[in-house]
């Protein structure tokens, strides 16, 4: 029954002591918060920490959420954003992104998207594209990164995202535009770099030696 309730209704019940409502609320929203922090930091440990801090705030002080002002989801994004930025400022160790599927030695060990119909090469290319976009997103300055993450990766509306970031929707839109410009420029640059590297790696026989193939 709790699955059908809105997060706002679940919060009210959880605040009144309904443990099942709290579980349902966590199931509904924890993934969003975790993925937001993960996209922002590129670090699973930090993302989990941020998720915990965000929900702990909700446990200790549920009254901080004012139902009339915004949805609970965008309120929690705002809380998670503050925790994430604080953690990123404090610890620069989170910037290098450990790509999922690649262990510390750089070896691929588990594909992110496993499409049985796709052949290995196609799968590899897709994974590489995802990794490039992820790196480009992480390289954005935080003010643009959060706009891209919320609007394009988390698919929030302008109003919801603007509330989470405590700015006007117009400001958010221009940040998103600028962020996407920077993202496109970076992806273009890595594309050129990759094309240059591939051309340099063409052996006499004509087969392209992909930089990652050695790990597959």
């Amino acid at each position, binding site marked *: 029954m709790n699955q059908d309730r809105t997060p706002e209704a679940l919060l009210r019940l959880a605040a009144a002591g309904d443990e099942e409502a709290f579980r349902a609320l966590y199931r509904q929203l*924890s993934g969003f918060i975790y993925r937001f922090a993960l996209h922002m930091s590129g670090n699973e440990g930090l993302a989990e920490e941020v998720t915990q801090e965000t929900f702990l705030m909700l446990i200790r002080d549920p009254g901080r959420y004012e139902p009339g002002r915004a949805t609970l989801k965008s309120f929690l994004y705002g809380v998670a954003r503050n925790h994430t930025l604080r953690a990123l400022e404090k610890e620069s160790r989170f910037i290098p992104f450990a790509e999922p599927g690649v262990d510390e030695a750089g070896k691929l060990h588990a594909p992110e998207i496993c499409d049985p119909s796709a052949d290995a090469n196609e799968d590899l290319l897709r994974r590489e594209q995802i990794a490039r976009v992820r790196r480009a997103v992480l390289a954005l300055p935080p003010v643009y990164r959060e706009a891209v993450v919320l609007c394009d990766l988390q698919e929030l509306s302008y109003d919801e995202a603007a509330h989470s970031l405590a700015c006007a929707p117009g400001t958010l839109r221009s940040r998103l535009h600028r962020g996407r410009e920077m993202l496109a420029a970076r992806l273009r640059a890595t594309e050129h770099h990759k094309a240059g590297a591939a051309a340099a790696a063409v052996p006499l026989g004509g087969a392209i030696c992909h930089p990652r193939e050695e790990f597959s």
Partner: protein
Amino acid sequence: MNCRDCELLLMEAARAGGASGAQGATGPLQRSDLEAALDHAASCPACFERLAEERSLSAGLRLLAAAEASREPSPGCGATLLAAYRAERGSEVHTRRWVFAVSGALAASLIVLVGAALLLSHESSTLVRSFYSKISPLSARNRTASSASSGAAVPATAEEQASDADNAAPEQEEVTDFVAYYPGADLSSLDSGALVRVRVPASALESFGLQVAQGNEEEWVSADLLVAEDGSPQAIRFVRSVSQSSRN
């Protein structure tokens, strides 16, 4: 529409073309605006290239979002939060119980204090009365009716109060000294007692060595009887009401 106007719209067009969530993300933009931008891009090579780049970027971002859509925090994270939730609710219940207990104790203390105050007030009034009678048997009646009505804390018997009520007109009493009720009795040994206002025939004054004017023997006069704790009369004094007007 020129290239500059088109710039933001192309971003919106590229975003709206994909995931369902992005449909609502175009905000206040009208579909007609997007179509106008797309028309412009179709005829402008620079904007066409820009649109292609925006679409490619949106596709890449959607791919990333889809790849990580199933990423969730570890079960340990949920377990930790559930434990925190239980602890918090538990401490809240504990706090609520503690508050109830303290409130109950305070209410009980208040009731005891009020009871004690009422008891003390009753006892002190009795004590004051006996003390007053003891230390000032002779001046007890040297108060005016007006001072009595102003709320002075001078103890009075029910009869005195009734008498005071009857004598609403401003008047003053003149009293004689206390005379021992039984000849030879020592009044100084009296510890406590009460004054009782009585009415006696004027002829009774003679038995206490006082003179009565001729023809007044049949009249009744007021007297204050000083009664010991065992109820025996110890002394008596006679009272005469003097109206304010007659004094003036």
